[in-house]
């Protein structure tokens, strides 16, 4: 048994962490995260140069990582800094295009930014529920429907879209100009958009894409779990610091047992969150991938909300303000549960597969 992080991954974590704390501090982060285009093109190039995107794909596909732990390494650092850059859609696109056999270099170098449009208003999480339609009446594929809350839609050069056709669910690619996109900012930072497709021209990537979409969504959920672990660590460090320094009734408030026990409870939940994320990372590419990811996303949803709510409550009014970074961490931690399946969605998936071990 060995829980040590490999030398390569530690180096990536260190250099990425250092870059983000030096160049993507909370003030810059808030300036980017809450204003269009919700993306800093120079910082994106810097991140790509650090190898953040190459770490998402294996060597035989032009990357230098591609394992569960590589994804966890990258996203934990992004979460720690609340980085709003659209790395998550790039990861989803990497997994999807890997499965299709396409050349990944434009993606891994960061030159081509992707958005991935799967969810719809009435089908926010489950691929099998989507209704956007793809038809081919001889002159090429056309897509009709609405894709909802597409992360990074405004900054994207290309968009991958899941749509239903006569033979099942397929994966298509379009240029953003071929869809009508209403872009907006999100309450926890970053940008997304509504995509209106009305016989929009598209290129078929894969006709039978159900399994690859599920795989990509699993990887995305793993990334979000890791992002939450990084953000929880940072939020918790802020809280502990506050408990030690804020004085009321003549002493640091961390001296009150009522708060001490709650701070310890948060610490326990964060370690549980870290463990389930490590477990899921270790099972990527195995039979247990989907179930383990769902376990992680469910636990993360509960833990992240607890950390968000308790850190606001214990720090009090100050954590309710825009100026204090803890509020932005709290928002991200809560809203991660609204991406790629919430606690209930993933609980149902685990419930559907409850077997006695013997």
């Amino acid at each position: 048994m060995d829980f040590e992080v490999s030398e390569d991954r530690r180096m990536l974590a260190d250099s990425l962490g250092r870059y983000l704390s030096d160049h993507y501090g909370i003030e810059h982060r808030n300036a980017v995260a809450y204003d269009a285009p919700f993306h800093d093109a120079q910082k994106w190039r810097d991140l790509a140069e650090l190898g953040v995107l190459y770490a998402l794909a294996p060597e035989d596909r032009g990357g230098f990582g591609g394992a569960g732990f590589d994804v966890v390494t990258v996203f934990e650092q992004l979460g720690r800094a609340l980085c709003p850059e659209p790395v998550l859609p790039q990861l989803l696109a990497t997994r999807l295009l890997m499965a299709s056999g396409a050349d990944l270099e434009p993606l891994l170098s960061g030159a081509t930014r992707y958005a991935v449009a799967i969810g719809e208003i009435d089908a926010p999480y489950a691929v099998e529920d989507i209704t956007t339609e793809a038809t081919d009446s001889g002159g090429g594929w056309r897509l009709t429907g609405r894709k909802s809350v597409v992360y990074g839609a405004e900054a994207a050069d290309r968009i991958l879209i899941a749509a239903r056709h006569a033979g099942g669910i397929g994966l298509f690619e379009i240029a953003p100009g071929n869809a009508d996109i209403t872009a907006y900012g999100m309450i926890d930072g970053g940008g997304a958009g509504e995509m209106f497709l009305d016989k929009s021209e598209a290129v078929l990537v894969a006709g039978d894409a159900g399994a690859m979409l599920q795989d990509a969504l699993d990887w995305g959920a793993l990334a979000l779990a890791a992002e939450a672990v990084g953000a929880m660590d940072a939020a918790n460090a802020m809280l502990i610091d506050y408990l030690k320094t804020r004085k009321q009734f003549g002493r640091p408030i961390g001296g009150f047992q009522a708060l001490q026990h709650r701070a310890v409870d948060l610490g326990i939940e964060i370690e549980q969150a870290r463990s389930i994320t490590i477990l899921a990372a270790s099972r990527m590419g195995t039979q247990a991938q989907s179930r383990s990811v769902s376990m992680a996303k469910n636990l993360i949803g509960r833990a992240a909300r607890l950390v968000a709510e308790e850190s606001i409550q214990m720090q009090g009014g100050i954590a309710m303000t825009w100026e204090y970074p803890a509020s932005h961490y709290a928002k991200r931690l809560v809203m991660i549960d609204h991406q790629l399946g919430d606690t209930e969605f993933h609980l149902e998936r685990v419930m559907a597969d409850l077997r006695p071990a013997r």
Partner: protein
Amino acid sequence: MDLTYSPEEQAFEAEVRAFLNAELPAELAEKVRKRRELTKDDMNRWHAILNAKGWLAGTWPVEAGGTGWSAVQQHIFEEECCRANAPRIVPFGLKMLGPVLLKFGTKAQQEEYLPRILDGRDWWCQGYSEPGAGSDLASLKTRAVRDGDDYIINGQKTWTTLGQHANRIFCLVRTKTDGKPQEGISFVLVDLDTPGIEMRPIRLIEGGYEVNEVFFTDVRVPVSNLVGEENMGWTIAKYLLLHERTNIAGVGFSIEALEQLKSLATQVRRGGKRLIDTPLFAARLAEVEIDLEAMRLTNLRMLADAQKKGAPGPETSMLKIKGTVIRQAINDLARRALGPAAAPFPSEALDGNAALVPEDHAANAASYFNNRKISIYGGSNEIQKNILAKGILG
């Protein structure tokens, strides 16, 4: 045991309902229902409508221009207002300062200020908390030093709600630095036009502006603006907090919010199913309804008790704790009901064809984040637990 209102109370309930039906402007109710920010004019407009009916000061005696309502009548009025999505009465003049002046103010102060609160000439705000004095309010440091017929005030207040609309502020200030901290505090009235006062907005977590910091630099206030005696401010502050606690359970808010949530859960779909038909979400919804039903009765029991005894006691802390926890649980479900669609900033751009969520629900996530404040302000839930623990364990 009889859980129903008396015939007179039932008649009053019907009268309130009819009044709201006839007089509450639809556009105000819509703004409240959609949790849009109300302007100063919106709030003043509603106050004026209530004042014309003689229903603005629910907690004041008739002689002072109030309603003379019993505790149960006040409760009925609050609950019906919530149900109808009426704007909340701005509490600082009507529910906080008014009762304080009636109890501790001089006749001159009562005659000067009470009518101005009723007709809207004065908008009061509250100067209690300081950056270093939150839960430990008695440690406040804003200093008032006597100079002839004036006090000279220096210091800083914070979390002053809707101070941007106010022309006056009531403050707790330190008038004595030796002895127990509670014994050196005074309650003074300050005109915000006085030189040396600066108000700065604080932006909140979800992006809104409703609280402020207030800075005092050599602000001269006549000694006649002292309420009660010098150094008895703590007694007044405690009296005020007790008054702030009527309707502290916020049951009316929760009932209305739960209704909206249920309606939302019948509109939102997950695949082929309505959200309300998915067992996991329905279970959470049912649990919070159970808690709220119990809370409604706990609130009424305490109300009946207060009516008998004449004043609410420390058990109102229980109402504050459970009431805020339930409201926050409903806010949580209203946010998560929307799934990914909860994420966009509440924005005009997503109205009409681009609308992403059922009408009235675009601000659900913002409301969830904003309402984290209700377990912090007015004495945090931790402080309420200290009060209850002291009552049980000594």
